[in-house]
């Protein structure tokens, strides 16, 4: 799973959101490091809908323009959980090795 996909699923894990709300939430989650653009976002949303990981929650019309809210499905929740476990396991390994490295070098950075 690539980072934008992970972040979009994470944004929808909290509550159902429309496209622009997903962009804002991702930006907030990453401290401004990642700010998705419309082309990237909707390519991902289309793919995730096709894979059954997200679905349309509801639609509303705001200023005569369609606003569609997306939510995580059960399969999406499972997929996000799996990816989260994987990332956590990798982070734990990296953290352990960095700690050992600092111990070996007596706290000095190489």
């Amino acid at each position, binding site marked *: 799973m690539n980072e934008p996909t992970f972040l979009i699923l994470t944004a929808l894990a909290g509550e159902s959101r429309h496209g622009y709300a997903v*962009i804002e939430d991702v930006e907030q989650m990453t401290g401004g490091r990642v700010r998705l*653009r419309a082309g990237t*976002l909707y390519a991902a*949303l*289309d793919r995730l809908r096709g894979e059954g990981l997200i679905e349309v929650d509801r639609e509303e019309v705001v200023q005569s*323009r*369609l606003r569609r809210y997306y939510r995580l499905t059960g399969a999406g929740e499972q997929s996000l959980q799996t990816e989260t476990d994987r990332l956590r396991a990798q982070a734990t390994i990296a953290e352990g090795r960095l700690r050992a490295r600092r111990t070996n070098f007596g706290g000095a950075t190489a």
Partner: protein
Amino acid sequence: MTEIRYRRLLALYPRDFRQEYGDEMLGVLMADPRPGVVQTLDIVRGAILAHLRASVTGQSQAARIVQIFGAMLLLGFSLRRLTGVVIMMATATADGYTPHVPAADWVRPVVWGVALAGAVLGWRVLGAGAATIGLTAEILVPFQSYADTPATVLYAYWLIVAAAVVLIAGLAGDDAGVLWPRGWWLVAGAAAALAVVVARAPFAFFAFGYIGSADLLTIGVTVSLLLVALLMQGRDLRRRLLCWAAPIVVSVPLVRYGFIGFIEFNMRNPDSTRLLNPLHWAVLVIVPAAAFLGAAMLTNRTAAAR
């Protein structure tokens, strides 16, 4: 950037995608305070991805059905070949003569049976692995007599193309569980009927004038069954199945009309047999691939026009 300019950029997307997300995307783009070249490039990139995705979507399901139907037809042929040999053995033994049974005649039904099982069960490795062995066998058997009678390769050409199509479909197809496609029993019936024709008149496809009305009737029934099975599929799926079938369909007239002079020359001059030249080989390889691409372009254009 103005709404009109965004609308022009969104026109780059496939129509279905635009209908589904165009209005939403426009709202997001208008709300986004980052207009500029990067935004434009992101939309163009998204449009290209959407086109690629649209061209691939549904192809894997069609490929799986091609794999199943193709393996079914090839299994029918190979079973009939084996049955013919077994009948010959049974009748010949009474005269004190036991005919030689080529290993390929035993191997091919087993291999295509395994390929069919792999295709139906959705076990991609099994299906593609068996199809690879099957294709190898379909190539090796006619090539054993290529030096003496080069035409045997041409007679088996459509079978080789069919085996190659089944292999490629097996690699491209989905592997999502067990699948019995709509109308599979019609294709099974067509395989059985066509096998009868092949057993009675091996070169029937290349010499329609020399076979009886019963065989022509069988061919008619076979083609009808296949057409009904095709019509039972959804419109989009049918379009894709036709693309996959094009290389096999084109292989018959290619040999019948493109190589008739070559075949007749060798029949009339058995002492100075000509082998296929590099141009012949190139045609035999390129034409099926071109048929697939041509059919794909034609059906895409037809779909776009709807």
